């Protein structure tokens, strides 16, 4: 177990190294640079050169990369060109928002996806099955930003059921403890702030949940169908167990094995999926900030954020792999 964890963490090092090279090349191939974002159309070539020199962008790419690596090893991600604040500070301030959003989306996707997938499998070939299979196809196909705009237009701007942007109503004076707004509200017993933060999560959460929901429905359905044909389900039925006992202890517990792997992979990808949703809903998380940083060619922020996301992605999947051995006794982590 311990060796497994250490080995997986050591595997992170070459992966991050490779990623950093790819990122570096990609960023420097992007047309323009921070100077264009700062100066816009007005700057003279001299002013541009001065800024580039000031940021160290005039040096050969290998030297720049070497400098970046040296800082990375000291866990220093540098300073944002646009905000002049430390990249780490920017990340810590925005990451809780994205986590809240991703968790909301995941809870929605799991809470709807697993029952829907199960029912579709149980009613195979009937109406509900066709609806959920077709629905999940639509869910995968509709672009997240499009769905986000549609949700926002209907439920926020027309029906005024939900707020259209942000994480918290500016008129609410909430105390900040962890930067997880819902959690802060609960910790400080500012219930209205917590409820308001939760309210702000609904629409972006729904938009972000669409793809994971569709995938979970499909995987659950396929997995349940497979398990229903297994001999041990027949044994469970032969014992005269109630439908509920057969479903919970025998069907679902086995069917959840592939679903849990999928959920792990999806959780990682939600972090990147958040970019579009956060932008549409002006939701201040890492996604919206990354989008801004791309526009402003804020190299240190992009490098730093993407590297951290990569680490988190690997950690989430490590946790999923470890939990897999808890659900399936046949899997022993070595």
């Amino acid at each position, binding site marked *: 177990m311990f060796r497994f964890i250490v080995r997986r963490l050591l595997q992170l090092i070459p992966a991050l190294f490779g990623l950093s090279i790819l990122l570096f090349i990609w960023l420097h191939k992007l047309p323009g640079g921070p100077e264009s974002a700062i100066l816009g159309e007005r700057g003279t070539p001299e002013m541009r050169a001065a800024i580039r020199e000031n940021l160290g962008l005039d040096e050969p790419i290998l030297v720049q990369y070497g400098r970046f690596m040296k800082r990375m090893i000291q866990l220093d991600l540098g300073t944002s060109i646009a905000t002049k604040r430390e990249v780490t500070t920017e990340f810590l301030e925005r990451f809780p928002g994205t986590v809240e959003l991703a968790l909301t989306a995941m809870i929605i996707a799991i809470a709807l996806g697993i029952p829907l997938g199960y029912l579709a499998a149980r009613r195979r070939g009937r109406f509900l099955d066709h609806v959920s299979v077709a629905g999940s196809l639509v869910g995968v196909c509709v672009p997240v930003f499009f769905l986000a705009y549609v949700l926002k237009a209907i439920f926020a701007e027309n029906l005024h059921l939900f707020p259209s942007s942000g994480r918290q109503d500016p008129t609410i004076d909430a105390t900040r403890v962890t930067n997880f707004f819902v959690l802060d509200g609960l910790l400080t017993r500012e219930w209205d702030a917590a409820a308001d933060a939760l309210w702000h999560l609904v629409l972006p959460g729904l938009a972000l949940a669409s793809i994971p929901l569709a995938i979970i429905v499909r995987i659950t359905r396929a997995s349940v169908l497979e398990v229903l044909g*297994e*001999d*041990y389900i*027949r*044994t*469970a*039925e*032969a*014992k*005269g*167990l*109630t*439908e509920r*006992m057969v479903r919970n*202890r*025998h069907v679902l*517990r*086995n069917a959840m*094995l592939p679903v849990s792997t999928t959920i792990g992979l999806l959780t990682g990808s939600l972090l990147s999926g958040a970019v579009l949703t956060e932008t549409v809903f002006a939701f201040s998380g890492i996604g919206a900030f990354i989008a801004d940083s791309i526009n402003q060619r804020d190299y240190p922020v992009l490098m730093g954020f993407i590297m951290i996301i990569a680490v988190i992605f690997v950690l989430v999947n490590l946790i999923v792999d470890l939990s897999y051995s808890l*659900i*399936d*006794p*046949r899997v022993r982590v070595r």
Partner: protein
Amino acid sequence: MALLEVEELSVTFRQRGKRTVRAVDGVSFSVDAGEVVGLVGESGCGKSVTSLAIMGLLPRGAGVTVEGRADLDGTNLLRVDRRTMRDIRGRDVAMIFQDPLSSLNPVVPIGRQVTEVLARHRGLTGDAARREAAELLDRVGIPDPTRRLREYPHQLSGGMRQRALIAIAVACRPRLLIADEPTTALDVTIQAQILELLKDLVRDSGTALIMITHDLGVVAGMCDTVNVLYAGRVVETARRRPLFAEPRHPYTVGLLGSIPRLDSSRGERLSPIPGSVRDVLPWADGCAFAPRCSRRTAACVGEPPALVLTHTERTYRCVNPVAPGEARPGAAAQGPAPATTTAGAATDGSPAGEAATTVPPAPREEESA
């Protein structure tokens, strides 16, 4: 009165775009309390489907039609509602399946799989259930039962798993136990142990047992009464000894003749039944076995052969049965037989029609066993 009375049980599978299959076609047999009854036949003869129909485990709807009766103490199991059937399954009728590894839930500890049936039907929970489960495992011969309760199926050997499945089946002391080829997936040495265990359990508890098998050795060792199935119908029913001593139906003769024997001379070939189970005539058009039968006569085709009752507990479905004493392949139950007297029906190389004319047709009414 018999504990279980199966009458004219038929199971039909209809699937869109596929041929309608009548897997079980009017099976009738009965099981007395405490009796061991064998259902014997080749793969595809309908023996497993029969047991699943009795257990109510066939998929509902979806083109599956079950007709006939299966009365357990007067209750027709084929007509009770689902909820009542769930109460009966596991409590009054229990089943042991073929492959013990795939029949146990891989992610639930053995103990849980035993205690859940105790909780469901006997209301035992917590420590009481665990104690009873350990006792059950002990009774089926699993050493160190308290430790085994915490283990998962993959940690047990094949024989242990089958013992665990048996423990689950007998947990609520059912009146009827159905064992569907319980030893097929096991090593030969383990097979004997499992059969011995089943025999002991049946004797000690007075549970009736339906033994589904294609292995006549199992039948010889265990069953009181034997039903030979062919193409979804019972073709011969007899007590064990008479069946082995004097099989009357050509198919039974063929089955007995195809057993490899230690005392046969070297170089002698095995005598399989010619053709395959797929060469069947629909029962409505005559005898389903006729296409493979060497004793076929003109009377075999046209209308289904009636069940001939020769004696109490001795019936066969054949218009041209093997006369007693003519074929004696089944000496297994009696002791070694001369190697030359293998089943005439199967070894006889002559065309079927000719063979039939050479045989005295009149079946004798009395049993010589």
